[in-house]
């Protein structure tokens, strides 16, 4: 059971959280202006890194807030969690 640091609540057990996919995807301001390929890129194409991944998480059974996290997909370690809108931290060396 991993402890995850909610930027608002602090360390909480993994059970309280829900994983919400890749972070830093911005919904296009005007989807109609995109061609099909561009829309497909936004809709369906995701990174699947072996290593550090930027992810969205939600403290769904706590404060309910969404936040971003830098997590390693092999070791399951969280290097950082941060609020939406904040710049992403660089992965540890």
């Amino acid at each position, binding site marked *: 059971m991993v402890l995850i640091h909610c930027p608002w609540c602090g360390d909480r057990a993994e059970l309280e959280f829900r994983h919400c996919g890749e972070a830093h995807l911005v919904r296009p301001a005007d989807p109609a202006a995109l061609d099909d390929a561009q829309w497909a890129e936004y809709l369906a194409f995701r990174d699947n890194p072996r290593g550090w991944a930027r992810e969205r998480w*939600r403290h769904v059974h706590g404060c309910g807030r969404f936040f971003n996290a830098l997590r390693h997909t092999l070791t399951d370690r969280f290097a950082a969690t941060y609020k*939406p*809108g904040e710049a992403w931290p660089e992965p540890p060396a």
Partner: protein
Amino acid sequence: MTRLATGGRIDRTRPLRFSFDGRAYTGFAGDTLASALLANGVHLVGRSFKYHRPRGILSAGVEEPNALVEIDRGAGRREPNARATVVPLVEGLVARSQNRWPSLRFDLAAVNGLASAVLGAGFYYKTFLGPGRDAWHKRWEPMIRRMAGLGRAPEAPDPDRYGNRYAHAEVLVVGAGPAGIRAALEAAATGARVVLCDEQAELGGSLLAEPSAWPQLAADLAKLRANPRVTLLPRTTAFSYGLQNFVALAQVVEATGGLRERLWQVRAGRVVLATGALERPIPFSGNDRPGVMLADAARHYVQRWGVLPGRNVTALVAHDTGYSAAFALQDAGAAVAAVLEMRATAPAALLAEATRRGIRVLANHGVSATRGGQRITGLLAAPRGADGTPDAARATPIACDLLLLAGGWTPSVHLFSQARGKLRWDAALDAFLPDEVREAVTCVGACAGEGLAPGLPVTQLAAGSATAHKAFVDQQNDVTTRDIALAVREGFRSIEHVKRYTTNGMATDQGKTSNMLGLAVVAGQLGRSVPEVGLTTFRAPYTPTSFGSFAGRHRGMLFDPVRTAPLHDWAMQQGAVFEPVGQWQRARYFPRTGEDMHAAVARECLAVRNAVGIFDASTLGKIEVVGPDAAVFLERCYVNAWRKLGVGRCRYGLLLREDGFIYDDGVVGRIAEDRCHVTTTTGGAARVLHMLEDYRQTEFPDLRVWLTSTTEHWGVIALQGPRARDVLAPLVEGLDWRDFPHMAVAECRVAGIAARLFRVSFSGELGFEVNVPASQAPAVWQALLQAGAAHGITPYGTEAMHVLRAEKGFIIVGQETDGTVTPEDAGLAWLIGKAKPDFIGKRSLSRPEMLRADRRQLVGLVPRDRSALPDEGAQLISSADARVAEGHVTSAYRSATLGHPVALGLLAAGRARLGDTVFATRLDGPPMALEVVSPVFVDPKGERLRG
């Protein structure tokens, strides 16, 4: 009896009676089942998995591969595969041997041993090859099924209770041997909270076989016990090591009338692993006979339990510790016929001591064969050739009733590996040792290689054994050196593949005695070093852990939460039949005396169509959307246009995912300019709120809007039918009926209770949904029943609700939709706000795939014969012998209103096929002819609900 007159830690004043295979025996408090059996001269305790060979007791601990027995503590308490070496003896213990028929001494399946030529490595996989599937089904599968499995699974429900506890400690020490006790004392001295656990019933580990250490052990344990910040947990196995020092422990409590086991989940600042080392057996022909025992285990039986496991002993040693064992048995009264030293020369000091004791030492010797049936009677001692093979031609017979194996030591790095620690190969010690790790974990004692001396390297231990007959590596899975050599010859190179192909190390002991030997055999066959071949992965659990300890209290009623609606108790009293809808229990129908479901549902449907029905709709999801931008927010999420929706009006809303497919639906009422009452499907409430919160927080953070789940705050009573208004109106205060058309909402009082009253219909009839605080719903329900009595008010359940909505062509998300249905497919494109530049999923609706003319569309279906009911889920095909599905039946019901079955379905280009005939597949007959019709069977113009 082989019990010694004195010595050991057993309590000779407390005899305990027990039985094994129906025979009565006696042991003492402090015994394990294994020590008590040995004390009674019982060596044969089981039959092996595959060849049904007689097997005895190899070890004195958790690594035991052979001595697996069934422990019977009464109904529901029959436990298979208990290791006799770790079962504490208790009064009245009932144990049975396994894997034998008709008896342990005479086992018919032992003929498998004769067929071993065809049961070698991978025989199971090879049965898939060759003469077709028939041979597999008729011959191999029944045979494998008969043979497969260790022991008998219990059949009755487990009557015992299991607990769960979380704990936090600065230091968790795993293993209460000398290193663990020292670590616990040191940590306790700093004032830290310490948890010290050990899998054995008695703390002390290897010290329990060192009588001279007992006074100090007692003093140390007393000191720890007296410290209130130290928790001592005997019979507690640390079986899983998770991230951030989260360690799971399984504690056997066996309190009378109380808990049987308790699962501990411990978060520790630092974990100290003092898990010791396991002695290696030695592969040679016939190394599995009862009476062949690990040398240090035999020493433990003598020193700890006062049992002499043999009177005429030979020791095969590759490590100095073998001599200590042989000497200890001699001191206890056994004759030591010989020590067979596998190394080229025996260590001088030990050789001198052996000579002084009159023990013959044969250097550079191995065993070429053993003799005996159900217990060893002798062996052939053979000089080892240059490649390690014992030379049978020059062998000398030696009689013995106990053969000790001292193959050296393997540090127990299982938990360290689970902690994702890296291992390094220590060539000098001939062992994998803990290396780098990120967790705050320290390894001490033998598991870190401390105090271990090198012996004969494991590759040389295995050298020459690959050609031996029946030289067992994994005794629990009956894997021999030849099996492993065969796997390598057949091309398996990775140790993980060899493991799976031969099943070496895959039994309940997870290879505690076999992994290193198997690795050494593979290395020898491949001409590689042990570290080049590498280890298989260590996974949790370290030893078998009961399902009960994982389940804890989460069984029966506590397995999954049950949600009940406000009228649940009333419906129970009425004898309603319930159905689960997610975690909800909903009343499905209300049968009257003599009615089956079909009759009850028909009666309930006709009551709604002809008079009035009352229905508990409280499970509908509800979300209160509040704020100046409430309508703007919904405008951006749902397909509909909301901003022009007036206060006091409501609208049927449709929510898509960004991919354009229907996600949820429900009525949204505008309570005020800045307040909307959103309803969702019963099953979709949580995920819809999650999705809306996602957009609110991350895509539209500029909007001033807040979302609150109110699903359980509102009780919802639906009144549907032409007499609904007649029933309701006399109870309503504060409502202007002149301005309350279909799809209106108002705050008013119903039966004196503050209510949100919706005029909506999910049946096609004039309908209302009365929302009141959930606690008030039963009172309002009673008032409506009373008021409706004169109008023939009839309670109805979810089944009638489904029929009524299907007759009207209303979809149910998740039944008519499956995540691939667009608004256009469902005939709901009219809901889309045409002037809206964007909403969730809009862009996807213009993708070429979404515009294809042959997309599957919602249609109505009526059996051509007007009588047979199609199956929900049946494939739709264009002719009775067509092989290509063009859609499927999504809903099908008998309709009392129409007098024939009706169905809904998704059909390719369905709306252009009205009047056509299609066929629905059936499981039990030829396809059924259906006419394609409009999905709205009742009142297509909608006059009734506007009435």
